[in-house]
């Protein structure tokens, strides 16, 4: 490992082994080839996003709107709710996802606590049962739920309730995984210290355990929301006549494809992106304030 005397002054240097700078271009290439491949893959991932953005400004001329880029217009953005049922489906999606997130996060967090903090029989079986929904193909999950709803005579009332039930089901496992990951890293001696300092079980949970677990719970809730909002296959089976946003997109492909859909897609991307970046900046600012 070559030591670079100038290294302490280079504050912006990426982490990793310290190297003396190579002037040889072939060397630079081989050092950076992996990074370049990685960046290329990322670019590939974003190509459709770029198209979505571009097509959101597209003025359709009667043919299927997603074939060619015809003309530029702001109209789509200003008249987002024009296509019938679009904004209704968005509303339903948001309602469903928030409800499902609340329940999935609640149930899943309880399960994560049980798995990490307590030992009991049947642990392996519990782990397996929680894992299976994640591994089950959505087709199977959707069809089995539909079959059950039909058999108990609920096939007339398929809608909000059945969609939420389905969403909670597949979000549950992801919540457990996420919260569990956070809890496992938590030092249980902190709770012992709290009890040593006169906090009873409830106070310990409220003042120490919960605040420390909260980042994991929040992450689980966000993950749950995204999974729920974007879900198509399971929702398709269990929605009955209700239309969530993904269902709307699927249905719209058969008719004239309104470019407003791409507008919504772009908005979704922007909102989430801003959210995540803001969270990251907030986190970094907190860290910097301490040092």
């Amino acid at each position, binding site marked *: 490992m070559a030591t670079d005397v100038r290294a302490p002054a280079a504050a*912006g*240097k*990426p982490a*990793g082994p310290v190297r003396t700078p190579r002037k040889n271009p072939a060397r630079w290439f081989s050092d950076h080839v*992996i*990074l370049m*491949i*990685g*960046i290329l*893959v*990322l670019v590939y*991932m974003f*190509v*459709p*996003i770029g*198209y979505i953005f571009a097509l959101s400004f597209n003025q359709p001329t009667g043919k299927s709107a*997603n*074939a*060619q880029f015809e003309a530029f217009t702001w109209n789509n953005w200003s008249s987002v709710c024009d296509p019938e049922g679009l904004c209704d489906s968005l509303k339903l999606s948001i309602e469903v996802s928030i409800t499902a997130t609340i329940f999935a996060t609640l149930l899943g967090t*309880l*399960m994560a*606590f*049980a798995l990490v903090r*307590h*030992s*009991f029989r*049947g642990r392996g079986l*519990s*782990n*397996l*049962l*929680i*894992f*299976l*929904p994640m*591994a*089950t*193909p*959505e*087709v*199977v999950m959707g*069809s*089995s*739920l*539909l*079959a059950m709803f039909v*058999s108990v005579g609920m096939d007339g009332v398929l809608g909000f309730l059945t969609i939420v039930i*389905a969403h909670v089901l597949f979000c549950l496992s992801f919540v*457990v995984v996420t919260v569990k990951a956070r809890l496992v890293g938590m030092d249980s001696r902190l709770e012992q210290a709290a009890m040593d300092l006169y906090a009873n079980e409830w106070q310990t949970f409220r003042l120490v355990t919960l605040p420390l677990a909260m980042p994991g719970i929040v992450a689980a809730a966000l993950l749950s929301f995204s999974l729920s909002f*974007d879900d*198509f*296959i399971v929702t*398709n089976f269990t929605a009955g006549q209700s239309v969530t*946003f993904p269902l709307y997109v699927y249905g719209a492909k058969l008719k004239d494809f309104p470019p407003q859909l791409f507008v*919504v*897609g772009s908005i*979704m*991307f922007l909102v*989430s*992106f801003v959210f995540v970046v803001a969270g990251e900046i907030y986190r970094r600012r907190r860290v910097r304030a301490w040092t």
Partner: protein
Amino acid sequence: MSHGVLPSAGPEDPVVVDGEVARRRGWGWLLLVPGMLYLAVFFVFPTIQLFLTSLYDPSGSYVTGYNLTWHFANYVDAIRDTWNLFVRSFIYAGIATFVCLMLGYPLAYAIAFKAGRWKNFMLVLVIAPFFTSFLLRTLSWRTILADEGPVAHFLRTIQILPDNGRLLATPVAVIAGLIYNFMPFMTLPLFASLDKVDYRLIEAAGDLYSSPLSGFRRVTMPLSLPGVVSGTLLCFIPACGDYINAELLGTPKQYMVGNRIQAAFLTEHNYPLAASLSLILMAVVVVMVIIYVRRVGTEELV
């Protein structure tokens, strides 16, 4: 550490960590009950029901009702009619998973070791495409890979595609869609695994005269194996059952098992067939999971 005889660690025994014992409370498992109940009612029970449905008399229908006749022949019929769909699904999913691994590994490696302070940002970029509806993204691919689109045009120019060749409505498009949609499922577990590898181990390999390539082969790759395995599972399994990509980017000639199940269920109302197909698919998945669990244990699952 002279401890004497330690108790054998079983699931019921207290775990000894640093000389301290994780608390064993009698009522702790109660926390598990609501969630487990939910899973039992909405997952286990429907799955069992699905199994029963697959054994219905296939001559029944929505109108005339169904009889449970333990008609195991349904399975035989299902496989006989659709074995080619299964094969196709596994091939498509397999190719997609393989390409995901080839592309995802360098990406995960780059983020873990080469990204420096951009690490978190790059991670966000990996999942950022998921911020839009996946249907919309797949539909974008339809535009991108369209006959009049730039990609097809380019490939025709350099003669990879024949002049009247198309990308859309071919297996290539379907697989490309699968790759695109499941890439993060491969990249993130790979990253998690690689991130845990102490970079100094790789440096130590270099110090012990190994070339970068053999250092990778002998040190990095084995250590990242858990990530490779879970990434592969998380990619392959949903890809098998996917039908959106096939439907939007392909023709009925590319349809996968998922398409058949969906059609059987929602269009044809042929419940016994749909159920048996679902369960066969499910069985394959469970077998793969069991093999995985055998090697790694259940604690790593969730």
